């Protein structure tokens, strides 16, 4: 017979695997991840108890692991997304209007959050130069920093960084290539391009 201490130590039990996930996500410290279909193919979407935290097309991150490697928050793969949230996202992607979507930008710098919040106010069918956001933030000299912040936009398509163009009217850079940016703007009826 083992001694009593060893037998007590043998009573250690592993909690159900889902407990860590429900605790971290329930506290708001972690996200869930699932895909939503779009005209660009499946999109990885991460969301917290506050709002959407990340979006990456699956052509850029083919597996959930590759998405999680780059996502700034601890996340767990969900079997599916709540139907109401999925519908909101699908409608926002179709219309280009994400006003009803809540975003969770925690973990980003104050400046980056301000840039993204300003960017989110650009309506579909419109474009603004990088300097417009800098002026909105009362930092007219920060045009380059605005560009850097937009390049790191964790929620592209829904936060429409594709609507920010160069001051000469040319499309400028985009995380998924200038061609996709041009395609998005044509789709939104920005006919000047």
């Amino acid at each position: 017979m083992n001694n009593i201490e060893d037998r007590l130590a043998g009573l250690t039990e592993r909690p159900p695997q889902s407990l860590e996930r429900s605790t971290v996500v329930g506290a708001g410290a972690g996200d869930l991840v699932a895909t939503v279909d779009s005209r660009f193919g499946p999109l990885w979407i991460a969301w917290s108890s506050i709002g959407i935290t990340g979006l990456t097309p699956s052509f850029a991150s083919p597996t959930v692991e590759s998405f999680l490697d780059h996502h700034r928050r601890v996340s767990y793969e969900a079997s599916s997304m709540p139907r109401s949230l999925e519908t909101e996202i699908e409608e926002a992607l179709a219309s280009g209007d994400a006003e009803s979507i809540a975003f969770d930008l925690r973990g980003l710098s104050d400046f980056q959050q301000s840039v993204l919040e300003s960017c989110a106010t650009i309506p579909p069918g419109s474009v603004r130069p990088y300097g417009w956001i800098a002026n909105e933030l009362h930092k007219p000299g920060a045009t380059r920093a605005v560009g850097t912040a937009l390049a790191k936009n964790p929620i592209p398509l829904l936060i429409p960084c594709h609507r920010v163009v160069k001051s000469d009217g040319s499309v400028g850079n985009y995380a998924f290539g200038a061609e996709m940016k041009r395609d998005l703007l044509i789709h939104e009826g920005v006919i000047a391009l």
Partner: protein
Amino acid sequence: MKARDASNDAEIHTALVTDRDLGFTMLVRRYQPGIYSGARRLTHRHEDAEEVAQDTFLRAYRALDTYDDQRIKDLKIQGWLWTIALNLCRDRATRPNREMPGLAEPPDSTSDAMPIDSESWNRRLARLSDDQRTAVVLRHVADLTIRDISAATGRPEGTVKTDISRGLERLREAVKREEIL
């Protein structure tokens, strides 16, 4: 970002200050299995143990929001978590319509496998005084140090040692009696 494997307390302290949510996840990874195992012996029911193991960390997360960096760095993490967990265990113990230890329904087939004499141990532990049971479970099931048990229970270290010693002695006697029968 994927949840990290268990980290040591120094890494958790640093992460809690620099990235609260990442630090919290590391905290859950490292300490939730122990809280669950201990709560399983103190509440007798795995459903209660799951609730305690989850609510302990949800309360800890809310508390961390109110702590400044120095207070977080000074935290004796395991003792602090068990202070919260023991309060939750006591709350459940005073709920009406509690089932008797050992009579709780076994978990269904989808739950994790249970040690074969799990309910026997619940009965033996239930015969100890509350202080003895808590001290024995925290020391030998949840693997806390005497100092952490003292911090969690608010009882002096010498008293904790006595609780453990007497608790173990009673358990030895109980096992011996059962084996003779």
